[in-house]
């Protein structure tokens, strides 16, 4: 049995009725033996490059799991679809934290009572057999009742560790917005690949250096060895560049989308095509996502002013929702935040959940 920071007994219930509603219940539920299904995982860094779909408010509860494990077996009951995530702790100069890009996401965990699933942890480059604690997240809609009956674990073995090393070296470098500043790099069993190759290079250099001094081997060999190490790392990175290029080009040519910017280009084109002839276009943006979307719209639509709805509302000619699921009221009016004067709108186009473009009908 695993120990929990918040759960002292082996059965707990989580009811998502709001951020504050969090109950630890001790219910005498009879555990029915069930077959554990291995749940497919997605690395958060893979989903970070796609446009976020926001269907509605979600509530997240987090538990700390302390055990050396290669997999977690969870018995639970849930009355609605939920998502489970596992994050891995890393020690940094700033303290113990976790890299959200290395989090494993287990989506669409089956609904039902006494369900049993296995969460394989070895797919994350942050997993290592030495890891002793994880963050276990459960995410669902408000009102969903989830009972975690038990959590057991599979300890790491040599075979699984070797298999994990091969699996993790295949994890792509996430080429994201932050990549222009810094690259994450590859990690195998929680250790940086640069560091591992670098240390191997130093060892080879020392051996060659000894040979060099004692047997007068070719000095040029050192450069060749250096280039081999350089090409070794570069081959892995080049593979990612090629994969990223293929993916980006195919997304752009097929759907007119590009990484996590999603429909932002289609939105800009739609607005350009709908610019009023009798006045200049002014776009109000209601968003809860990263401000790159606002910056992108500003750049693409300039010289038309594009501002947050808190700065531009009554004079705006168009309204864009980004990551905010909102529909007009029965009288056809809409607001972004409370306190704004409701304005009548006509839907120009709804994109993915939470993203839509409206035209304001007249003045408020």
């Amino acid at each position, binding site marked *: 049995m695993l120990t929990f920071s918040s759960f002292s007994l082996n059965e707990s219930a989580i009811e998502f009725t709001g951020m504050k509603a969090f109950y630890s219940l001790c219910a005498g539920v009879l555990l029915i033996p069930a077959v554990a299904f291995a749940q497919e995982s997605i690395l958060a860094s893979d989903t970070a490059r796609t446009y976020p779909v926001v269907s509605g408010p979600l509530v997240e509860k987090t538990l700390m799991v302390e055990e050396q494990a290669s997999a977690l077996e969870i018995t639970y009951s849930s009355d609605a679809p939920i998502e489970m995530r596992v994050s891995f702790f890393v020690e940094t100069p700033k303290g113990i934290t976790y890299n959200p890009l290395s989090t494993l996401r287990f989506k669409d965990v089956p609904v039902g009572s006494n369900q049993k699933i296995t969460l394989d942890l070895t797919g994350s480059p942050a997993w290592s057999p030495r890891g002793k604690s994880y963050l276990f997240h459960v995410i669902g809609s408000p009102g969903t009742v989830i009972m975690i009956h038990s959590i057991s674990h599979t300890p790491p073995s040599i075979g699984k560790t070797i298999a994990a090393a091969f699996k993790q070296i295949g994890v792509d470098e996430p080429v994201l917005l932050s990549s*222009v500043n810094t690259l994450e*790099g590859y990690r195998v069993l929680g250790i940086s690949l640069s560091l591992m190759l*670098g240390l191997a290079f130093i060892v080879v250099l020392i051996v060659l250096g000894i040979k060099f001094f004692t047997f007068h081997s070719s000095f040029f060999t050192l450069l060749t060895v250096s280039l081999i190490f350089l090409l070794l790392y570069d081959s892995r990175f080049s593979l990612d560049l090629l994969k990223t290029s293929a993916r980006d080009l195919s997304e752009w040519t097929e759907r007119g989308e590009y990484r996590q910017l999603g429909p932002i*280009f289609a939105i800009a084109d739609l607005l350009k095509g709908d610019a009023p002839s009798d006045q200049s276009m002014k776009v109000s943006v209601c968003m809860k996502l990263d401000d790159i979307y606002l910056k992108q719209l500003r750049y693409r639509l300039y010289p038309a002013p594009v501002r947050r709805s808190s700065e531009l509302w009554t004079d705006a000619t168009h309204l864009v929702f980004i990551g905010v699921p909102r529909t007009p009221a029965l009288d056809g009016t809409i607001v972004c935040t409370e306190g704004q004067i409701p304005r009548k709108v006509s839907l120009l186009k709804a994109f993915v959940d939470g993203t839509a473009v409206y035209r304001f009908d007249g003045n408020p």
Partner: protein
Amino acid sequence: MTLLFFSGVAVLLTVEGRWLVAAIARENLTRSEEWALGFPMGTFANALLFFICTVGGIPLNALAVFGGHLGIVIIAFAVSSRVATPSTPFDTPSLRLGLLPPSLKLRRTGRVTRRGISRDFNFKKYLLPILLTLAILIKLFYGISHALLPSYSYDTVSQWNMRAKISYEDRAIAFDRDEVRGMSKPQYPILFHSLQIVFNLPQKEWQDPVANGATLLLSLTSFLAFFLLLRRLAGSFAALVTLACILTIPLLSIHLAQGYGDIHVLTYVLLGAVLLLHSFERNQGNQGNQQELLLLSAIFVAASAWVKQEGMVFGVVPWMVIVGIGTGKFEGLKVGRFRGLEVLKFGGLVFLLSLPWTLFLLIKELPLSPHGGGDLMMGWHPEGVPLALKALFAGGSFGMHWYIVIGLLLSVLFERVRRGRQVEKSMFLIFLWGIITFFGALFIFLCTSNIEFLMNAQTFSRTMLLPLSLLILGTVPLFYYNGSHDAEGGSRS
């Protein structure tokens, strides 16, 4: 039409730059080198033209800009037409003798068996160049394909392309002090923006791929010129290895695709450095005409200060130190017979070419740094040391590069100790430039409030691209040079 106008502007800037380079370098460069340097030089001339228009209050419309370029073209052509440019490399500088492929030298000196030669020959002569070329081509493919995709990054759509687009619409460089229109950092110099604007002027409206294509062209031509110049200095293989070592820095690939100003600071500084090497080498060889190449080096280094202020800190100031050391009274490092007055003249020229933007900012009462007064708030921040080490040695931005540069350097030093050889002085000075910028950058991030940008991983790795590239330029050919002496069995002081 878009492609036609794009090509037209590219040809104009290249021809203009080529004639400017020919007029300055006289008979010291080959035709291919002049053509390759043409676009980077034309881009700098364009930035200065935009600056003159901005200061003079002249609107940046097609008439003023292309009229100005026409004037520069006529003058450059008139001056350069008096100069005869050799189509083939002339008497090679002294480094070249030591830089033939070692496998050939081994064969010549007869110190290895035939079987050894064959294996050595195949791997180093064929396989290694093929692999290095392939690595370069993949980076170029990524760069070219992504330059044609929409602008992506934060600063691109708020500082670089955004400011260029606003200035394009205004027909005047924008100096917005707030972000109402969406641009920030009005103090940034204008080389990048003016290049994107001049390429968009003939277009009906602002074209994002044209803007990104223009900056990509600047990167590509700069690296081509760098390769050609280094090839004549150190041989094809050493030039290929050096270029591959620089282009395979993982973070550089991302910047080659769609970057900020950092990659252009880097390429201008590298061009200045390799021209400085040529100048030193010709001077050492007592071949004369070294002044023209020193002048050209000064111009390219000054151009880096027109991309970002970092160009002043990591380009102009270290250049003056290096030229001062190389031509000064330190006999161990002295590489030439420059007179004090000449050094003063070129030093003054670098400042004259790079300072106007700074003076202009002062007159406009704009802060010199985008970080306000924070750059001057000194204080040791030891908490940044582990983060800096992690970024350099255990992150993804640099892969194996820092290990390799340090390993190669130690090898060269051991070699020197073992055989009592002198390291090639001019290469050592470039290495020193790399060291100055490396420790300068470390000082900025660990001893000022810029620690913030190390902690949040925003600019530290980007800034370290320049020192690393300079260290590669100062190490790899140097190593090769030393290594070649194994085969020769001789030493050269």
